[in-house]
């Protein structure tokens, strides 16, 4: 008896689906094998800082992980001088990254802690991310974004979007692309080939290429006014324009401080997903037998209600410098390169103030 045409079509459809499923399984298995076999690529600024941190001699025992506000506004040398003067010396490294995201911080922190091979880290300072950049919207296909878009982060992002009343969970759909690229190890083998094509020691070359970004002392700190003095051409023009446009006039500055005072009493509520992530960051540092210390850098960007998170125990130690009444010296216009970043003098002062707060936190 001949099978009906419908049965035949159904059989073919089932067979096709089974074949596609087989292909997907083999793809996933191959991708997992390749991920473990291929060398980790050296492409992002986080890779460069991790390598410098890992190779430092003597090893660093204190690290500041944060955004450009940390990168441009926290001077490890000033911090170390202050702690040494207090009889509790530190040797610190600035691990500030432009626009570090909360979801990215987990991956960066894990890599950073793995680079502490001699277990010399004692203190990990974690800058609290401002509320309005918990998620980046640009460069979804950049190497950096793809690197941290694993399944777990993807699900966390969707949960975050679902909990945030200002966003829709559907706004997370463009993240399917970096997730796919992450799962498919996009460019991992190509990076290895490119290292070979470079012809020399890829690691040394890679560090050397970005050495200027690590500052004069190579401790990761480079204030914007110093970067401006060394820039030329288009880069210099862009920085000068930024300085001109983003540093408010004295009158506007006072208005901004007044606005900040009002914002302090109306912090944006932190979501459960963010609380979990902060607790996880804290636990990761604990596992390394180091002490996590969260801090809010001085600035004008609206912050999360991290004090609430601190009270709930997710953030064990919190040093907040977002209050212009409590730290008026950190809100002097002359200490800023632009509204979001301290200049060299401001960075030095903030590092000293942070060191004092840190010493107070440690107790006598």
């Amino acid at each position, binding site marked *: 008896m001949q099978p009906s045409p419908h049965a035949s079509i159904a059989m073919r459809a089932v067979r096709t689906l089974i*074949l596609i499923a*087989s292909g997907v399984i*083999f793809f996933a298995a191959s991708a997992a094998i*390749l991920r473990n076999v291929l060398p980790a690529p050296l492409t992002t600024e986080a890779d460069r800082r991790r390598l410098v941190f890992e190779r430092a001699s003597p090893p660093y025992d204190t690290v500041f992980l944060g955004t450009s506000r940390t990168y441009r506004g926290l001077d490890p040398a000033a911090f170390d001088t202050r702690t040494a003067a207090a009889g509790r010396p530190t040797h610190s490294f600035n691990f500030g990254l432009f626009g570090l995201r909360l979801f990215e911080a987990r991956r960066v922190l894990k890599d950073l802690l793995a680079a502490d091979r001699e277990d010399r880290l004692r203190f990990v300072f974690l800058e609290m991310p401002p509320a309005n950049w918990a998620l980046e919207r640009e460069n979804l296909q950049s*190497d950096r974004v793809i690197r941290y878009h694993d399944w777990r982060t993807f699900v966390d992002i969707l949960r975050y979007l679902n909990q945030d009343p200002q966003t829709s969970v559907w706004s997370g759909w463009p993240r399917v692309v970096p997730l796919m690229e992450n799962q498919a*190890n996009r460019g991992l*083998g190509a990076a290895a*080939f490119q290292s070979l*094509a470079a012809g020399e020691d890829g690691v040394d070359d890679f560090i050397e290429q970005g050495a200027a970004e690590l500052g004069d002392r190579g401790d990761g700190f480079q204030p914007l006014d110093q970067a401006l003095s060394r820039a030329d051409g288009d880069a210099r023009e862009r920085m000068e324009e930024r300085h001109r446009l983003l540093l408010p006039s004295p009158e506007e500055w006072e208005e901004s401080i007044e606005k900040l005072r009002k914002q302090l009493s109306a912090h944006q509520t932190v979501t459960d997903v963010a609380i979990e992530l902060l607790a996880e960051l804290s636990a990761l540092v604990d596992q390394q037998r180091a002490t996590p210390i969260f801090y809010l850098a001085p600035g004008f960007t609206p912050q999360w209600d991290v004090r609430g998170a601190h009270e709930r125990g997710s953030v064990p130690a919190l040093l907040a410098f977002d209050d212009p009444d409590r730290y008026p010296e950190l809100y002097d216009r002359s200490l800023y390169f632009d509204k979001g970043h301290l200049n060299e003098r401001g960075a030095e002062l903030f590092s000293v103030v942070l060191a004092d707060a840190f010493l107070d936190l440690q107790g006598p």
Partner: protein
Amino acid sequence: VIFTELRFIPFLLVVFGVHWLLPGHRSRKVWLLICSYVFYAAWDWRFLSLIWISTLVDYLVGLRLGALPPDDPARRRWLLVSLWANLVLLGTFKYLGFFVESAIALLDWLGIGADPWTLRIVLPVGISFYTFQTLSYSIDIYRGRLEPVRSLLDVALFVGFFPQLVAGPIVRASDFLPQLNRARRLDDVVWRSCILLFLSGFAKKACISDNLSLIVDEFYLHPERYDLLATWIGILAYSAQIYCDFSGYSDMAIASAGILGYTIPLNFDFPYLATNIREFWRRWHVSLSSWLRDYLYIPLGGGKGKPWHRNRSLMLTMLLGGLWHGAAWRFVLWGGLHGAALAAYREYNDRVPARFRGRVPVVVATVATFGSVALLWIPFRATSMADATTVVASAFGQGAGTTSADWRLLVVFAGLAAAHWIASSGKPARALVRAPGWVFAAWVGIAIACISAFSARAVEPFIYFQF
């Protein structure tokens, strides 16, 4: 849209899905034409007008040629209309700036001052390919080898069919138009071959060509800096890059057309395994070399007549073939050198008895042919004649550069050569096409994982887009 860009995959899937869901043959052709124009407009919608002009002119010329008796002298005039229209388009957008600049340079050299003005004409992507296609349509009708097509839709789809629109293969009207007469059937699609071809093309482009472009670009930026080893690595890298880039594109174009039910002829047949330069041209960019043979070389006299006449036809064809690649003297030089090599090979064939010619081992002949072709790529790729001279000097140990390269790259090239040789037998492809379903599915899964991991991060435009 570049075939290796992520956005091409959903585009192709939508085109494919809707194409096969549409009920009628005509509606499918309309859909394909719309998609083809959208594909082209994604680059620059303004230049769609050039495609329309080319299409319309040859459609009307074709109808007129078909309506006239074979011995009517007016046929020749109508053919000239097609030639004139297409060559004016090509000449204006591709060559006018080049000729103006060359004329100014010549006048300057002669000591006759000329105002240095340059034309800033954007080269429309694919113009060299589709003008040759439309020309073949009119010429074939003129020669009585093809019946004119009454359907403007069919002619428009023949010219604008997106898989081959921007970088070939140059499809002959006699190959493609008959396919439009019959409704395509999903059951006729040779799935495995298409998937295999698409993935191998993707791998060639994204994993080999794009990765090698980093080496090549760096090398040709300052060729004077490199020593003998690095120079040969640069030369080999470009030879591999241009082959993988163009043949990769052709493979993906053929596969994309294949899943829509259309057949586009193969454009490359493992050219680097050729044992002589003539065989190389029978294997490299087959659609162009056969077009040049049928529409230029043979009308010029071909292989008939005295040796001088034959060689003149050959040189003229290759010089114009070189110029087709780009409006620059280095392409003309490249074509001329290939013409000279072909003429020399013909002389060798004519003068050396077959019993002696047969004694050259195949390996030696293959390596010698590949070496010649690789060296001839130098003027094609170098940014100036001075750079080309520098590279040639360095390749023969006369360079002053000291920067070396990692010798392990030679192992990579040996691997590529081995893969080229193994694939040329066709056995791996045949084995995969005949394998059980789950084996093929597993291979596809593994291949995609490998392609993704080894794809260069930056998607480079196809080299032949600029031609």
